[in-house]
């Protein structure tokens, strides 16, 4: 039998002493832990950043930048990453729930306008005014800019240069040439082209380019729907008739194709033409290096061969009015001055800079892919500097930035117009009338 005393070894510690010490240590630890949040809260600020660029490189770059910021300034920046479609809901519900995000990413100007109208956004003019920007990207409201656009995601047409050379084709300048080229490339187990027609964002982004080149406008200066008026209807008819013919050169499944299918079909040599932004080049480099030197890019074309267009696309950051707004503004200022190019490099060809100074910045140009594809990069730059290239999209149509074209975008009016023509064999006139009626209803 033993007791406390018998457990004490020469030079050792008795069990009683051990328990007392542990108790004292526990008390100190508990007191410290309980007190810690208050001290922590006083000494360290935390801001929440909602990111929608979900590639591992972009998330990593953001987290590294945030860790660097915390090291330098002591403010913790927590990055949450969600798919783009969920961003607006996350932001609005976080506002309503009382724990708002301080910084958020959006890819639709309507969301920015909606939050701005509710007084939820900080103006970012002091940050954007330092630089020269490309066209149709700042979307100012009463001379104030409420977001910091970080990229263009313009959609243009990719074609296979090697197949063009083999068949003696040249880059298409008109609907007829595009159709002929696509028909020619429909051979050897390959389809001529893939342009999605489903009710999804991919169709909204990648299919209307031909319509913009044809000079179609969705609204007049007073927000009246013009799609079916005497001037536009014949243009839309030409677009629909052309698209119906082009559809015959596409693989089955175009009605369900989204971004992934377009990328994979072009990079796996299954189609000769596809539309996208710079992501395709990155995909070719990663998955099909042999094809990475065999692509050409060209804008969408009209029926006469006179006009060209690219479909608008963009992303940007907003700073929300929260108790942390000042700290968020400081972070945005630091990030856009010190980390912006690092961030762009996480998708070097897909994140096309809207800031014109970046194109001549040796730090940006130093990326190996930008260097390697400098010809494509110059063409991309030309899409925003060449005034003859029409730059528009469903969500940016109309006389001013507004929520109404956003409703047309989210209502999948143009995709459904294509589906009515192609899948339901409706006449073009009927398709146009149905689409215009739906637009009027959506924006009423």
């Amino acid at each position, binding site marked *: 039998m033993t007791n406390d005393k018998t457990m004490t070894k020469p030079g050792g510690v008795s069990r009683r002493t051990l328990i007392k010490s542990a108790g004292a240590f526990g008390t100190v630890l508990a007191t410290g832990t309980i007190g810690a949040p208050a001290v922590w809260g006083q000494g360290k600020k935390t801001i929440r950043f909602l990111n929608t660029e979900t590639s591992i490189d972009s998330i990593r770059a953001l987290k590294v930048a945030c860790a660097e910021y915390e090291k330098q300034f002591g403010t913790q920046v927590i990055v949450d990453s969600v798919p783009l479609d969920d961003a*607006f*809901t996350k932001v*609005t*519900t976080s*506002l*309503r729930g009382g724990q708002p995000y301080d910084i958020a990413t959006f890819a639709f100007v*309507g969301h920015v306008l*909606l*939050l701005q*109208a*509710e007084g*939820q956004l900080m103006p970012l003019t002091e940050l954007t005014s330092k630089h020269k920007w490309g066209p149709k990207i700042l979307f100012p409201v009463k001379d104030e800019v409420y977001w910091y656009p970080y990229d263009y995601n313009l959609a243009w047409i990719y074609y296979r240069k090697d197949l063009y050379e083999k068949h003696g084709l040249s880059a298409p300048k008109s609907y007829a040439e595009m159709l002929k080229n696509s028909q020619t490339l429909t051979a050897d187990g390959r*389809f001529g082209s*893939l342009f999605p*027609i*489903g*009710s*999804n964002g991919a169709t909204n982004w990648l299919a209307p380019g031909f319509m913009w080149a044809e000079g179609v406008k969705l609204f007049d200066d007073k927000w009246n729907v013009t799609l079916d008026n005497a001037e536009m209807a014949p243009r839309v008819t030409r677009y629909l008739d052309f698209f119906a013919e082009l559809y015959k050169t*596409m*693989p*089955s*499944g*175009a*009605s*369900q*194709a989204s971004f992934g*299918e377009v990328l*994979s*079909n072009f990079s*796996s040599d*299954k*189609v000769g033409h596809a539309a996208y932004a710079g992501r395709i080049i990155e995909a070719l480099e990663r998955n099909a290096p042999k094809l990475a030197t065999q692509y050409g890019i060209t804008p969408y074309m009209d029926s006469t061969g006179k006009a060209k267009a690219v479909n608008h696309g963009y992303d940007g950051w907003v700073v929300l009015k929260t108790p942390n707004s000042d700290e968020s503004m400081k972070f945005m200022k630091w990030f856009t001055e010190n980390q912006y190019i690092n961030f762009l490099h996480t998708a070097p060809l897909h994140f096309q800079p809207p800031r014109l100074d970046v194109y001549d910045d040796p730090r940006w140009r130093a990326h190996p892919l930008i260097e390697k594809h400098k010809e494509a990069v110059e063409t991309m730059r030309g899409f925003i500097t060449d005034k003859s290239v029409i730059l528009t999209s469903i969500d940016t149509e109309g006389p001013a930035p507004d*929520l109404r074209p*956003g*409703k047309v975008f*989210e*209502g*999948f009016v143009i*995709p*459904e117009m294509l*589906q*009515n023509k192609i*899948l*339901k064999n409706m006449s073009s006139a009927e398709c146009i009338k149905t689409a215009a009626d739906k637009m009027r209803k*959506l924006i009423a």
Partner: protein
Amino acid sequence: MSSKATIYGFLFVGLAVTLALIVAPAVYAVSLSFYQMDSFVGAPKWAGFANYAAVLQAPEFWRALVNGAIYALGSIVFQVILGIGFALVLNETFPGRNLVRGLSILPYLLPTVVVILTFKWMVDGGIGIVTKAVEAMGLPPINWFESPGAAMASTILVSVWMWTPFVTTCFLAALQTVPQSLYEAARVDGTTAVQRFFHITLPMLKPILTVVVLLRAIWMFNKFDVIWLLTRGGPVGATENLAILSYRHAFNLFDIGGGAAIATISFALLSVAVLIYFWVFPLEDD
């Protein structure tokens, strides 16, 4: 603690959880349907029954209602017929029966998104394995989603693929409660297998059939994930049901009140349907 106190304690906790997680959000959702709201930010404007009037006048609503009914009916019929068939097979004795029973539940265990993405890549028009197999057999390509009818059929097909195992498991469990003596007596009377199925098996399965059909009907009518991931309600709204229409109004078309109104009408329709169902097919106590 007395047994009565224990019972009331559990009852209180159960009611509190139900109230907080089911009743309160449902009441809130119904209340939203009386307001005009672009988003969850900003002050809602009282709209009375305007959202209901607008929704009921929209052809999209009636189309979604019909689509939901077709999808639910089509899915349930195939799930029940195949589920009973598989259950009858799995109820027989054969080598490796336990393994086959385990494998048969597999599609139900997979996450919906995995099943849908697998299916979409399998039937991809350019590189899908099914497309390639069809091509290798010299058959014309199958247009899984290229017409409204085909898209609906594909959606039903995927639902049947996913949930038939659940129905099979329910019926298999029920089959094992049918006394063997009934079959033995019937055999002595010289009945055929078909007669035994219709006069013994099916009547004995009736209670579970009633519950399974009811559950499947509710789940299929409200189904969102499969249709959203597969077709997003397209083409041209051909697979859009009330759940998807409600979501699109609330989160895509900046019409939260309209979305809530659609969800409320859907809830009311289902409640009425359930009452009618139990009136026609009452569950007996014994």
